[in-house]
């Protein structure tokens, strides 16, 4: 859970990032016009964002640790979902059929533009 220690460390992280991003996020200077724009609100958002992210990541890490130890205790074979589906024809065949159907129907379900976006995306997947 969120302990005082986690909050303290997250606070430190957010302070560090606030310092780190200070010149580039906050100051925008134009020496030719002689104007300096101080965007203090950015500093606030960076600090807040880092604080929340840091707390979240710490909580998730703790949870994962717990789950891992539980899993080890039960010592059950644990495959990722994708692998499981790929190895089980009972799920694999209907799913591929559905995907194929969706692909074929796509141009009729959506307008030309969406289809265009999709073809471009698939093309770049195929070529990369």
């Amino acid at each position: 859970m969120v302990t005082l220690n986690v909050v303290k460390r997250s606070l430190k992280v957010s302070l560090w990032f606030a310092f780190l991003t200070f010149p580039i996020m906050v100051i925008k200077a134009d020496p030719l016009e002689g104007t300096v724009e101080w965007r203090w609100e950015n500093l606030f958002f960076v600090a807040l964002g880092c604080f929340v992210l840091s707390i979240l990541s710490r909580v998730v890490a703790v949870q994962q640790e717990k789950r891992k130890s539980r899993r080890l205790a039960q010592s059950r074979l644990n495959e990722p979902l994708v692998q499981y589906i790929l190895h089980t024809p009972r799920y694999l065949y209907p799913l591929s059929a559905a995907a194929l159907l969706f692909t074929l129907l796509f141009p009729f379900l959506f307008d030309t533009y969406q289809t265009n976006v999709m073809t471009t995306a698939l093309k770049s997947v195929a070529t990369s």
Partner: protein
Amino acid sequence: MKLRIGQKLLVAAMAMAISLPAFSADPIKFGVAGAHSGDLASYGIPTVNAAKLIVNEINARGGIDGRQVELLIEDDVCKPEVATNTATKLVSSGVHVVLGHICSGATKAALPIYNNAGVVVMSPSATNPALTQSGDYPNFFRTIAADDAQARTEVDFALKMGLKKIAVIHDKGDYGKGLAEFAKTFLEQADGAEVVLYEGVTPGAVDYSAIVQKIKRSGADAVIFGGYHPEASKIVSQMRKKRMDTVFISDDGVKDDTFIKVAGKYAEGVYASGPKDNSQNPLSGAAVEAHKKEFGSDPGASSMRTPTRRPWP
């Protein structure tokens, strides 16, 4: 000044839109395509703003023949592969006329789609000569001079100043090299002029002193440079720092406020070709004022450019 171009375009567009068969009081669909995001956005956004301004004005007056004008704004990020999508989307939503695209490459990619659909396209900034001169795209118009016209102007200018030995330098890009090739051809055709150096430099390099020394050794009276302002300002400032007073003539890729800002005192005495300067025109002044009032910023640098592809593996 771009605003001014936008204005002209719009008037032309309106005229053409009227000549299209009008079925009812449906709105006239006016497409605006170009780079509205990404690093070249500064070239596309002013056109959008200009279109908005004029369309608001026309609609407030009751539209054209009772038909309101509807803007369809689409972003192509100046990328040819995105531009085809943009064009398809505009065509499939029944656009009547398009203002754009901003970059030559994107325009070239999008034109066949508009051509098949019979849509008139006008660009304020695509300067590639083939777009109009090849005859492939009868639906394409532009309000800016093509690159060969620029090269002609630069060469004539140099000859008029009595400069005989000329170094032609370019940035190896489509736009810069194309322009440099035209300049070289025109110089070779001219009497008494001599191309003493014709070379491409690598854009984005950290130092150009080697090519600057080579220009000095070639004994050139003037440099004609085809390319954009970042390289131009580096070359000019290194030339001046090496105490050379060779005349520097360049194109509308250099005719940009950023060039003057970046090159600072070294920008003094650099000549650049570009569209007619109409900043003194009262219409232009009014347009800039209107733009400032509506969007709270200047309409942007006057020059437009064809972007080169960024080298990311």
